[in-house]
């Protein structure tokens, strides 16, 4: 039995110092909704648990001067949902974050944990990728930023360097006519892992789509940014042909597996269906006439 230590530092520097010093034997504890399950299953046996929830920067939500948002990596879904403005500006990101688990899990689970758990099926990730969110990470060598899409390296693996901790998400300011949405397919109505998840973020000007990003989850080893799907929408008036082209791009991007949660054929087909539905919701939110 290995000796496990628990640390709840008050500052990020302290957290990074301890985390880096443990040289990979440490795990970050945000909401714990993945970590504690993995520990109990014996999948991970950390020597050190660094609880980051007592660090102010990791648990705060800030609306930046330019109209963007900075969300601490350990902010729980429930706290994000209670923010007076965030859900108005980024309804798709919020609904994605709020789909992670039950009410009880929402009391704990964070977008940072969801991203660093690096499941291809993490609900918040496609929406964050669609939103073009950027993460700030801090490690022994200081801070850097990277796009959300660059964080997952494969199932359960990230591109964070040894000793680096995910600090926050930065979401850009919203132009007029922007809207986002997230939908997932699950067999039940709650409590399931996404079989496919689709985040769409688009901007409409006079009915024409001027920008569009599509994030697709659970169809490949990492959550995908489906560039071709965005391209198919940009310049269109979101007519049926453009949306079908974007759906086809989503299906083409799928590299899923057959597993207990879904089949290759099913996931591929559903990716297109969800794209169409998600575009519809995002377009309505963008003020489609």
């Amino acid at each position, binding site marked *: 039995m290995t000796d496990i230590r628990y640390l709840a530092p008050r500052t990020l520097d302290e957290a990074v110092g301890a985390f880096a010093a443990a040289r990979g034997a440490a795990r970050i504890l945000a909401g714990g909704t993945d970590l504690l399950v993995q520990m109990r299953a014996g999948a991970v046996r950390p020597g050190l648990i660094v609880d980051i929830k007592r660090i102010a920067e990791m648990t705060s939500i800030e609306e930046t001067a330019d109209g963007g948002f900075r969300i601490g990596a350990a902010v729980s879904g429930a706290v994000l949902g209670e923010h007076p403005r965030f859900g108005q500006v980024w309804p798709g990101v919020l609904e994605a974050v709020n789909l992670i688990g039950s009410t009880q899990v929402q009391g704990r689970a964070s977008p940072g944990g969801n991203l660093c758990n690096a499941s291809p099926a993490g609900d918040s990730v496609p929406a964050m990728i669609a939103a073009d969110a950027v993460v700030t990470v801090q490690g022994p060598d200081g801070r850097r930023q990277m796009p959300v899409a660059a964080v997952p390296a494969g199932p359960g693996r990230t591109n964070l360097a040894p000793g680096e901790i995910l600090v926050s998400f930065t979401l850009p300011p919203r132009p007029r006519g922007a809207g986002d949405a997230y939908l997932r397919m699950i067999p039940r109505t*709650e*409590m399931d892992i996404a079989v496919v998840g689709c985040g769409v973020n688009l901007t409409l000007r006079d009915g024409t789509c001027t920008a569009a990003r599509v994030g697709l989850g659970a169809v490949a080893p990492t959550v995908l940014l489906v560039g071709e799907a965005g391209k198919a929408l940009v310049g269109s008036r979101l007519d049926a042909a453009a949306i079908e082209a974007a759906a086809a791009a989503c299906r083409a991007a799928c590299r899923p597996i057959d597993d207990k949660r879904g089949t290759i054929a099913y996931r591929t087909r559903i990716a297109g269906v969800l794209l169409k539905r998600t575009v519809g919701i995002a377009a309505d939110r963008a003020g489609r006439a």
Partner: protein
Amino acid sequence: MNVQANKWIGQRTIRPDGADKVTGRAAYAADTTMPGMIWGKILRSPHPHACIRSIDTSKAEALPGVKAVMTARDLVDFPIDKSVMLGIQDMRWMCRNVMAREKALFAGHPVAAVAATSEAIASEALKLIEVEYEVLPWVIDVEEAMKPDAPILHDHIQFEGKPSNIAGKLEHKLGDVEAGFAAAEVVVERSFRTKPVHQGYIEPHACLVSVLPDGKTTIWSSSQGQFMVRAMCAHLTGLPQNDIRAIQAEIGGGFGGKTIIYLEPVALVLARKSGRPVKMAMTREEVFRASGPTSGSYSTVRIGATRDGRILAAKGTFYLQAGALPGSPIRGAAGCAFAPYDIPNVHSLGFDVVSNRSKVAAYRAPGAPIGAYAVECVLDELAEALKMDPLQLRLKNAARQGTKAAHGPTYPRIGFEETIQAALEHPHYRAPLGPNQGRGVASGFWFNAGGESSAQVNITEDGNVVVTTGHPDIGGSRASTANITAELLGIDYRKVSVLIGDTSTIGFSNLTGGSRVTYASAMVVTQSTEKVIRTLCERAAKIWKIDPDAVVWEDGEARPAGDNAGQFPPLTLAQIAARASETGGPIGAGVQLNTTGAEGGFATHICDVEVDPELGTVRVLRYTSFQDVGRAIHPSYVEGQMQGGVAQGIGWALSEEYIYDKQGRVDNPSFLDYRMPVCSDLPMLDTVIIEVPNPKHPQGVRGVGEVPLVPPLAAVANAIHDALGHRFYSLPMSPPKVLAVLEPADA
């Protein structure tokens, strides 16, 4: 009993154990400790099929903190080729299910166990046990297991003269089925597949066992029968039953899955070896891998009828997965399948097929949902072919008083027609449906059951009542007992406390299961209470110095009757109790019976669904169940049984299944991936209680709990057909399967 005059029977009283349960104080299996208690854990086979060449426990025994280690050698050996029956369970299988002997027969099969001073040390010790396996070919699926080249699980089991995985056969025959089909004008035959599904109780198996140096043993565990726990532990450990006191903890759900033991004999042996009380609790993963579930199945049903809808012949063949050891519920499948109908020619066959998965345990109307799924889907197709309303088809062929059923009985007064009639007349059946919505109906039957029960009714010195029965209260049966006792004594039900006795404090009582508890305990409680009332009248007679026959018990008091009427002021229960010592001693009575006369229960269900044709998801929009319960002693808990069974049936139909990986291990052993319905998946589940009293029961009770799980699989399937025009012959009707039918991959 005059229903209209009932004061407590039929009332929605507050259950005697209610406050205990809403405050978190009720003690379930895992909620108790004993001084000096240590923890037991089980080592399980990683292989689905393997000979156990050797087990070396020496390193585990040497680990500091380890107090005992055991293997199958520490249990009584029941030779594999000699049956030793205890009720419906064969001890040669039970001993091998508790701990593997010659072979590990499924991934998760216990092979050894340890007890240590902490859970962590026990877990470490398990890793130090060295088991040498000779890995064998394995088979999971029921159809695969019957193929000629399938791996054979038990060499001594033969079928038609050859070693086989078919371990048993049951056959019901009525009339001449071939002649019936020859006369039929319309015949429908279809085959169906269902997956194994788990009972899904929220409380994992757990127990705490203490063994004193003189062998006196206390078992605290949650089960559907403390007497079953005692008897099985006595068989498997060699202890006499009088040395074992099995105490019934509150039980956190069972649905049949706790009618057998898993941990208790293991903890008993560990406690005996270590001299310390041993606590054991399964993880949820262990529950899924090694307890329950019910059978998966492959069935074929053929039904023939005249053009005007009279069913002439029916044949059903039901192959059920038993798991690694024989004992699948073929009686429920083959026996209940055609039981709702008056069919002159029936041939119903059940086959018990072993394969390398955990041994099945009873699950609510064991086997019956599997049979009814096939039959009720075929009836739906038959109604379509005949252009008949599916309820009218059922009504036309409904079994009624005097119908001879293929499984044996000629029915007395039953209430099946009433359930169909009620469904036909219910607004649900005529409510409009929207696009992609559909409505399905199905019916179902369960035998119900009597059997052994004991009760003791005691009057306290202050004139209140304590009733003790021997049945674990799994869903509110204490409340029914309180209602009956209060009714008979003519007192407020709050004056009645109801307890569940342990094996040393109440007489033998058979399992809580088969929809028998309210039926059987009502009989022994009624007879006990009637004895008490006779005693109360005798005591009043003594006080009044009149003949006991001249005393009647009315409205909770003894009154002089006949010539003496009005001669003395009535004596209340409290007044008589206060003078009990001087009039002859404590007042109380017990009755023990092997109850008979439980008559079958029938139900008809209506289900509305909506299908998302692009995603393949199915949502149940509305559900109404109509069931003849004989008499609803406590309507709320009757409705609760109906609703709970329906919810389980919806899960079985749409989302629940055991999934195995390529190594033959359960791939979804968690509530996350074994998808039981959650609150947001279901609508309100409407219930219509129909009361056609059972003439053989003092209150008219039939039994409630099993029937509600029988119709839903077909009701949902038939509703999906109504919505989409496609039929599904395999459960669960999960989104990928639905979509594959709607949009074939090559389309």
